[in-house]
């Protein structure tokens, strides 16, 4: 156990890497073995992240489970992994979505080996970002997570997949173009010649004139991945084109990389710039919330609705961060987690429906509740989470964010809360048109989810309910780290 404790994070990171190697070694024709190995590997990494959650010490804001290894001292690069309360939920989220995502794709038949190989690479990148405490590695994993997405969407996707995949990739890499100078600039202008995040944030550097530029670059560069307005259009298109589990990973985890980056690098290293730019971030976040919700309301494709709902919900995250208060940041991190689970649930439901009906047109669907009660229930649960119904995790997140927002910017808070009404409109509209109403002859004989395929959905729903009923599970883990961050922010001029 002691060994595991001191190498837990690297073990989690290695899980998908080993999975990749296993997948590479198994012949492509043996799809069953490939799926099994993927399930086992993802199961282990999920179990390890739960173990991590359980062994995490919530009383301190210091990094835990840290591992350090000299890498390239001359260039300031060190292999450092470690987590605090802010990254812990993200690791758990990734573990859960990874595992359920693998299960969701159990029925995949086309190019199975490559699919799971790319998924493993993607997940390795995601885990890496959340646990890296060195900018070089953080960025390395960040970029690693992006590219497999291209292939996953372009090969296994549906509607306009090649266009969507290319758009997504270029958007994200355009963000990276900003991140390159910003991240390296952090090391250079701090004068420390190190990429160690802890050192950089403890240094209290006076950035001078470069501060503004670097911070904005960080915000925009990471923010693109978080879908900030007006750089969000890649996201819904990508969601729509992606195959089910990739949508789950994309909306559930990948978009979190962006907001996590803003939080981890932007806010933590440059608190005074964050204080300066918070109004802008909040304004764009409110745009996200309202605008995303309205665009979602106008969509005719089920996945587009959810895609834009993600744009809206990520706005809540950014708004929470912008408030720079304990409630806001806790809410934001909670929302990242909750939204991750929730959209995964959404897409896993839509995936099942699309696989059988081969359409996602809201107007063509209808009465699915009668035919596919399970798939529909899954969607409705996710929908309820999406509109902030209590007893589901996202309620708490939104509650905290909105209260914090009302405190800081009453108008922004009010507008954001109004966004909830619009969310209710678009979710219920979909539920009414696609799931309720008379049963359509076209879908009469469509099978509902079997017990096995229902498992991942049940897990996700259970997580939503668990944290919905017991928000303290999450908030207690966050508290110390959030408080520390808030203190830093408050101390900034």
């Amino acid at each position, binding site marked *: 156990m002691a060994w595991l404790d001191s190498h837990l994070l690297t073990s989690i990171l290695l899980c998908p890497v080993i999975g990749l190697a296993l997948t590479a070694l198994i012949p492509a024709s043996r799809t069953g073995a490939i799926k099994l190995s993927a399930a086992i590997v993802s199961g282990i990494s999920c179990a390890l992240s739960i173990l991590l959650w359980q062994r995490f010490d919530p009383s301190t804001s210091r990094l835990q489970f840290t591992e350090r290894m000299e890498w390239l001292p001359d260039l300031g690069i060190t292999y450092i992994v470690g987590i605090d309360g802010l990254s812990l939920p993200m690791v758990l989220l990734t573990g859960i979505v990874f595992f359920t995502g693998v299960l969701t794709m159990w029925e995949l038949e086309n190019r199975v080996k490559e699919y799971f190989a790319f998924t493993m690479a993607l997940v390795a990148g995601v885990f890496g970002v959340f646990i890296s405490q060195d900018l070089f590695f953080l960025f390395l994993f960040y970029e690693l997570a992006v590219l497999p997405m291209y292939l996953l969407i372009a090969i296994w996707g549906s509607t306009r997949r090649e266009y969507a995949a290319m758009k997504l990739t*270029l*958007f994200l890499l355009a963000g990276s173009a900003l991140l390159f100078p910003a991240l390296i600039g952090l090391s250079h202008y701090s004068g420390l010649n190190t990429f160690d995040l802890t050192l950089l944030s403890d240094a209290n550097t006076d950035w001078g004139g470069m501060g503004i530029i670097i911070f904005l670059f960080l915000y925009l560069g990471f923010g693109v991945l978080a879908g900030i307005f*007006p750089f969000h*259009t890649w996201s819904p298109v990508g969601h729509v084109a992606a195959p089910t589990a990739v949508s789950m990973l994309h909306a559930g985890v990948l978009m979190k990389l962006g907001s996590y980056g803003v939080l981890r690098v932007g806010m933590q290293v440059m608190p005074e710039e964050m204080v300066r730019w918070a109004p802008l971030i909040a304004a764009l976040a409110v745009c996200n919330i309202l*605008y995303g919700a*309205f*665009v979602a*309301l*106008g969509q005719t494709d089920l996945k587009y609705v959810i895609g834009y709902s993600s744009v809206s919900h990520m706005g809540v995250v950014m708004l929470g961060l912008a408030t720079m*208060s*304990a*409630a806001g940041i*806790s*809410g934001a991190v909670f929302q990242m987690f909750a939204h991750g689970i929730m959209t995964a649930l959404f897409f896993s439901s839509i995936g099942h429906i699309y696989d059988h009906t081969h359409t996602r047109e809201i107007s063509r669907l209808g*009465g699915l*509740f*009668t035919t596919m009660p399970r798939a529909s229930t899954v969607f409705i649960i996710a929908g*309820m989470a999406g*509109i*902030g*119904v*209590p*007893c589901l995790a996202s*309620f708490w997140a939104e*509650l*905290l964010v*909105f*209260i*914090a927002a*009302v*405190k800081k910017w*009453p108008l922004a*808070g*009010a507008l954001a*809360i*109004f966004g*909830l*009404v*619009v969310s*209710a*409109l678009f979710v*219920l*509209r979909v*539920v*009414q048109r696609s*799931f*309720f*109403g*008379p*049963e359509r002859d076209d879908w009469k004989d469509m099978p509902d989810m079997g017990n096995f395929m229902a498992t991942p959905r049940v897990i996700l729903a259970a997580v939503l309910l668990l944290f919905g009923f*017991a*928000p*303290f599970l999450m*908030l*207690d883990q*966050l*508290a110390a780290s*959030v*408080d520390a961050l*808030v203190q830093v922010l408050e101390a900034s001029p």
Partner: protein
Amino acid sequence: MSLSQWGLLTIGAPLVTFVLFLLGVGRRPTLTVALSLTTAALACAGTWAMAITLPEAGYQATTPWAATADFSIHLGIRLTGLSTAMGLVVGTIHLLVQLYSLGYMATDPAQARYFAVLSLFASAMLSVVYAADLIQTFIAWELVGLSSYLLIGFWNFKPSAAQAAKKAFIMTRFGDLGLFLGLALLMLNMPVEAGGARNLLIALILEAVANNDLAGNLFGYDQHTVIGLLLLCGIVGKSAQFPLHSWLPDAMEGPTPVSALLHSATMVAAGVYLFALLQPLFLASSITSTVALGIASFTAVMAAGVAMVNPDMKRVLAWSSISQLSFMLMGLAAGSEVAGFFHLVTHAGFKCLLFLSAGIFIHLAHSGDLTEIGRKVGSRSRAASLGLLVGAASLAGVPAMAGFMSKEVILAQLHQPGYEGFYWLALLGSAMTAYYATRMAAVILRSDSAAVSHHRDTEQTKQEVDHDSNHQGGLADSIMAMTVVGLALVTLGLGWLGPQLAGHLGLDAELVAIDWDSMGVGLAVTALLAGGGLAWYDYGRTGAYREGFLSGLPAIEAMLKDGWHMDRCWRWVSDKIIAGLTLSALFIDRRAIDRSIDGVADGARSGGVLAASLQSGRLQWYLSLTLAVLAVALILLEWK
């Protein structure tokens, strides 16, 4: 068992049913139903136990549930006279409705889901009632909304039911927008506690109001006013007051027992209850209380007007509920601590009774149309007739009946200087109530079988009737009848419980005592006689025209039948404003944002073609270009 255990049992037991249903028990309907009934009985017992054993000083038990450095949120129970009395009503009505549903839903294939959601509904409502923290109230409040959504849309294969459910959710959500904002502002202005965090414990809020801790300005207005008005939005939505009332008549799409529960003790009652709970906060600002009074009195008359002409029994009852809720709010907003709440209790009894009777009628007549019911069933169903008579009399305000007793207290409260206008509106409302109550009873009970219905069934009634036609009768019917008769008896006595209720709330029994000699009673009786008499003249007497006097005023009648065109207004909002915003957002997204981004990509591609055109194929051009670039570089270097 301690009070907190009772509280946990009361709120938790029905929730357990729902959770077990989700976890798979739902596949065995009988088990679910049995579980549901058991937990309903347990919850009901819990409410009684808490009401009976409530200590003088009240009781509160909380546990922190979600805390950050700046805010903390608690869950718990807070037992006061008000909450235990309300809990009693909820628990009892819920049990009754569950029993009734046993008969009503006996053949529905989705029975299990019905009972499970009903349990969730009760649990949520009980949580609203007993909540110790206003955020907890809000959570439960939203869950009430959710479960009513699921119940109204229970027969979701009916497009109209799905539509109605959505409408109910959205409209109440609209009100909750204000409620949420109000809660947030209230939270932010609460005094800071020892730990540095703020919270919204109800006891603390009331204390803060009493200590005038909340005095202060917010956006240039008194804090009480701003917060009060925002909270009022939520109440208006939940309790179906103008202008957010139009969801309630449509909510009839749900099974009838759901309507009974929804209209009497849960959902709509939650709004009034919240007002009662935070009455000091609302009364602290005269603006807020006046606005509340204004909305309520206007709604009372408006809704009663619609009830006077509506042909559908359940819809009449629905509009009547809106009107009666307004009466309750008027009493509370006028400052009485008991009047409105007393009416809530009696109304819960008689409205539930009316709905349960209506269920039997509709089930027997296979139609919801009043005339049709009268023609096909009339007084032949004794239990239903009894229920209808008792309920209608109570609703109309026949002296000594429950409705009269409680409404009289409200009128007495309004009968003071400063409230004249509201008082007369209330009296007018009473007269109209008497009219539609009498009309309903008369049309059904004094029917002429030969009379031909002029009214066509509404679509939804037909489908509900389809459902009912599956009924096998027998045991199911007798369960329903017994429930109705029992409730009728209870309702008869309910009006005399005023002093007990006041006592339970810790108030002087005088407050609910009726001064039988006063002019107020006289005026009320006059209103009853005027309204009831007119209705009797129009519908009841032998040889009546069976046409309301309003048919002489077609313009008004049409407007009333259309519910004051409120639906049209809201449709306009939805079609024009919301859709407009949606379309413009879509336009911006596709045309402005996405196109400009694609434009950048296209620009790069054209740049590529341009760049590649430098590679012209002519060797000497290449060489010249190279030398030219070198020369330019050198010149620039020199010039620097």
